[in-house]
């Protein structure tokens, strides 16, 4: 650094700074396509469209697994006992308090639809296992109840409910 820095900014300095700034803007703009290309492409987005699932073949007490956007979705036709178990638990006992009613569609109380990915580190829990008759994750021992809510183990949150709607009493649209 010489003494010239203490002098008044000159027109030359302005030109240098402006040129550098324009070049920097160009460099940043150029980076954008290279980052954007990492996002899901149009065919992947299109393939993530909603899917219809027929519930008629699922008997009471049974669970099926379907895939939507590459994620396993558990659809469980819960027995009366399982629904009552879920509803009898006081919210204060839950690490992630949610009522069972808020996790199912009104009038279709026996149907539980959850994304079957453990909220701990992404393994797939096994249905109808564990101490709470819900889901048990074999990776690190997280246990979920018949409403898919976390009850014990390292997972911090309940199994998420995907967006879905009943088209008829025996048909849902996921997504």
């Amino acid at each position: 650094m010489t003494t010239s820095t203490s002098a008044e900014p000159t027109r030359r300095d302005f030109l240098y700074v402006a040129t550098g700034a324009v070049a920097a803007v160009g460099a940043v703009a150029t980076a954008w396509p290279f980052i954007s290309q990492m996002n899901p492409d149009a065919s992947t987005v299109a393939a993530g469209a909603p899917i219809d699932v027929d519930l008629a073949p699922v008997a009471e007490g049974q669970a099926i697994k379907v895939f939507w956007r590459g994620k396993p979705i558990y659809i469980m036709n819960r027995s009366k006992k399982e629904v009552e178990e879920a509803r009898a638990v006081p919210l204060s006992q839950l690490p992630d308090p949610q009522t069972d009613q808020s996790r199912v569609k009104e009038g279709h109380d026996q149907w539980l639809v959850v994304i079957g990915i453990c909220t701990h580190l992404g393994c797939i829990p096994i249905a109808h296992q564990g101490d709470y008759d819900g889901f048990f994750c074999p990776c690190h021992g997280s246990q979920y109840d018949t409403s898919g809510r976390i009850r014990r183990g390292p997972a911090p949150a309940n199994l998420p409910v995907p967006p879905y709607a009943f088209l008829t009493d025996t048909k849902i649209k996921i997504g």
Partner: protein
Amino acid sequence: MSGPSDYQPQNAVLKWVERRLPIGGLIHSSFIAYPTPRNLNYWWTFGAILSMMLAVQIITGIVLAMHYTPHVDMAFKSVEGIMRDVNYGWLLRYMHSNGASMFFIAVYVHMFRGLYYGSYKEPREVLWILGVIIYLLMMATGFMGYVLPWGQMSFWGATVITNLFSAIPYVGDSIVTLLWGGYSVGNPTLNRFFSLHYLLPFVIAGVVVLHVWALHVVGQNNPAGVEPKTEKDTVPFTPYATIKDSFGMACFLIFFAWFLFYTPNFLGDPDNYVPANPGVTPAHIVPEWYYLPFYAILRSIPSKLGGVIAMFSAIIVLAFLPWLDGAKVRSARYRPLAKQFFWIFVVDCLLLGWLGAKPAEGVYVVAARILTAYYFFHFLILLPILSRVETARPVPNSIADDVLRKSGAKAVVSAVAILAVGGLALLGNVSSARAQGHEQPMPPGLSWSFAGPFGKFDQGQLQRGLKVYKEVCSACHSLNYVAFRNLADQGGPSYSEAQAEAFASEYKIKDGPNDQGDMFERPGRAADYFPAPFPNEQAARAANGGALPPDLSLMAKARGYDRGFPLFVFDLFRQFQEKGPNYIVAILTGYEDAPQGFTLPPGGNYNLYFPGHSIGMPKPLSDGQVTYDDGSPQTVQQYATDVAAFLMWTAEPKLESRKRLGLQVMLFLIILSGMLYFTKRKVWADAH
């Protein structure tokens, strides 16, 4: 040149690092304090331009590899997926494919500059030989990259080039089998080419480091060809060379962007938009333009082994140049004879390139032999003799003297002019080589709404063209790469998403298997692709008298024709890219009665514009066949134009965004170049 660095970091952390790994000092001595001759002209900026292009190719290549599938059944489709579905995929792929051409343009300028100014002479022999190695690696890399899209030219280029090695006596065939990993070019070949195409650029980068290292040991040559003697002869790399190189790079990027955004397929071959077919060789096998001179040398020798030896020797001879040209004076500026022979040699190379794209017959073969002989004569006989007999003009005492004398501006201008004209002749010739040799009239040029820098698709026309496709063409022709969702894409027919969904639901799509293991049919969804009219190629042939109706998705880019000199030169400037649509209209309207004396083969129909005039497809369109709701004339001409525009969109769905982004990039680069130019003038004002 760069002795022990006097770099002294102020920052404590940098000091700590510097004592353990003097990388700051290395950068400082190599790219900041490094003394560079003060009389370098703009031809010297091509070194920086080449570094930039290598970086562009490596970065875009890494990104493309994230989306590409090296499998014979999926490679072509995955490249189309990049062009159509990946965000900015078209930009990255065109950047990479045109970037290869730009890389070679820059390397040829760089090499000819070295030849003219004697940059290969003592003490720069190793520097020069490293450059020849880089060039060889570039050729191998470029060739293998061209194979990856797995189009017709990819496949047949791979076949022809690997077969070069079969010329080697005794072991040739075994070597070719080794290269292929099979009995012919196939999936193992594609896989290993992909692997090597990914590897070699990093090898190039490594040799470039050696090249730059050698350069920094011996120092740069300069237009005067005299070594720097005093401080006055050099300027520090930064800011002088940095800013001059930056300006050169920005100007080169404008040139690059023109191809990239406005004529991205000008340098490519339409045949490479046809998926590889091991059963059919394209009528004209032509390598990429940058190999054409060597291709001409290969073909000019009437012996298989001889041709291969001549071709490789043409490159290898460069490595011996430092010993073939023994003249003490480096720069051709002071060698009146060498200067003239240099330009004759340049013309020789350009003409060889021109001949490489011509069919190997008649007068072209004779010309190629003469020019090939001259190529070797130049290196092996002319240069050694010239260096003994030529009396050079006096060279300046020092670089500083040279700067004061300041001549040669005129020479630069004329050199640029010669190179530009020659280069254009070569480029145009490449495009003209494609569809030559058939006695058929040129399809009439039509005016298209999507032509030119501001061109846009006419949405009404695309919708009409879709209707023609659906009601007529789709009976036989598939549209495999277009999904129903694309009908709602920006820059397309502009249907709403609901309309696209409704359009899709009119189709029956085969899906399955269901829970019982059976295939079933369901209404189409937006994500589905247009279903093909036939389940497989055999069924399509059986239903069409043995002829296969080609897929139409890429038809508008997969067909071209010779526009001839000098039209192709103008085509580059006016961004003419509408050969495909012109050709489609010409075919659809070109049905006539066969002229007297023309015998049609069985199942053939006479078409004025179809190569060979005998086309399997019967006249598909007649007036009034398709009902238009918008009042457009219901004529064959109108149907043909509409469907051709529609097929241009299916072939190049991102055309509008490409041209829009192109305009923004062009404006930006012009502003940047202007600012860099004035900055450069300010910086250099001190040095003159």
